[in-house]
């Protein structure tokens, strides 16, 4: 009877779930309720064609917070090196800054997709704006590196400003969704605000001091967000060992 019930399911489903399902049916005495329930389950599996392929295709999605978190960690560390170096002149800090910005776009994409079920438009706006800023930095930064143009800062500066405004928006939205540690999002927002302050008020006597504090807090905010995302993904892995029946 048990084998017959399992064979009612499509072959792709049996390839993925058949063995464990058979073990489950073997562990209990099957009543009429169970048999009827299995028959309905088999019909459902035939209609929806669930099985190995579907589950394997979806596997990558579960990795998104971890990968995005790792990208945020890398991006944050590179920014921690690149941002202070940018104050010494454009070129020493340009490599780590551009590499860090690239990593942050990956982090933004993953962390936005992860949160997009809540406040969908806001979350995507919070991805698009900083990502646009990073692209502007990349285009102008690479042009400067290959000597296609001099070290003008107009587009590069606009790119940094856009990236910071977008990062602040991203921090605000992430704080609102509560999907990641709020302390980390607050740090990111504070760091972006501190870096924007000298741009908004360039003649302030404390300009360099505020920038340097921001150049430390902003990357730390990204590192904390990345840590929060990777911890979120690992939380289930730290759960107790499987329960026995």
């Amino acid at each position, binding site marked *: 009877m048990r084998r017959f019930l399992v064979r009612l399911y499509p072959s792709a489903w049996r390839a993925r779930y058949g063995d*464990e399902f058979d073990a*489950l049916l073997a562990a209990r005495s099957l009543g009429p309720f*169970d048999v009827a329930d299995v028959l309905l389950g088999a019909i459902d599996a035939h209609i929806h064609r669930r099985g190995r392929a579907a589950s394997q295709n*979806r596997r990558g999605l579960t990795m998104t917070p971890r990968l995005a978190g790792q990208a945020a960690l890398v991006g944050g560390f590179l920014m921690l090196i690149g941002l202070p170096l940018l104050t010494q002149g454009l070129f020493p800090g340009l490599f780590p800054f551009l590499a860090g910005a690239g990593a942050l776009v990956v982090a933004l994409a993953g962390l936005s997709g992860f949160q997009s079920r809540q406040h969908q438009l806001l979350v995507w706006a919070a991805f698009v704006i900083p990502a646009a800023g990073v692209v502007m930095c990349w285009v102008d930064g690479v042009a400067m590196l290959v000597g296609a143009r001099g070290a003008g800062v107009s587009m590069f500066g606009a790119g940094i400003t856009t990236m910071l405004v977008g990062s602040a928006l991203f921090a605000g939205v992430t704080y609102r969704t509560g999907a990641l540690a709020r302390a980390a999002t607050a740090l990111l927002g504070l760091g972006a605000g501190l870096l924007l302050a000298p741009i908004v008020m360039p003649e302030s006597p404390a300009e360099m001091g505020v920038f340097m504090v921001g150049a430390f807090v902003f990357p730390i905010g990204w590192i904390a967000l990345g840590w929060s995302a990777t911890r979120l993904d690992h939380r*289930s892995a730290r759960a107790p060992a499987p329960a026995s029946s």
Partner: protein
Amino acid sequence: MGSPIQDLGRFAEPALLILVSLSEGPKHGYAIMADVEAGTGRPLGPGTLYAALARLEERGLIEALAPIERRRPYRLTGIGATNLTEQLKGLSEFAGLGLRRLRQTSR
């Protein structure tokens, strides 16, 4: 776009029960069924269990671990935990609203 749990239609309730069961830690199918029955007093059929498990796995809300003998444990993913939290908060607020209204009408 609704909650991925609510999007499961008639499997939304079994899926929620499974996620709550897995929030305690990884469990295989039989342990989930026993836990749900102990918690709700209602049996969860094996066909319904695996139809819901397949949907939850496809959506990345749970993931399968390496089988132990022939039993494969499942665990909640980070996304699953976040969605379960949202869902339970929503249900808690709805229950609170209902209870407040009942208290008001009974005065």
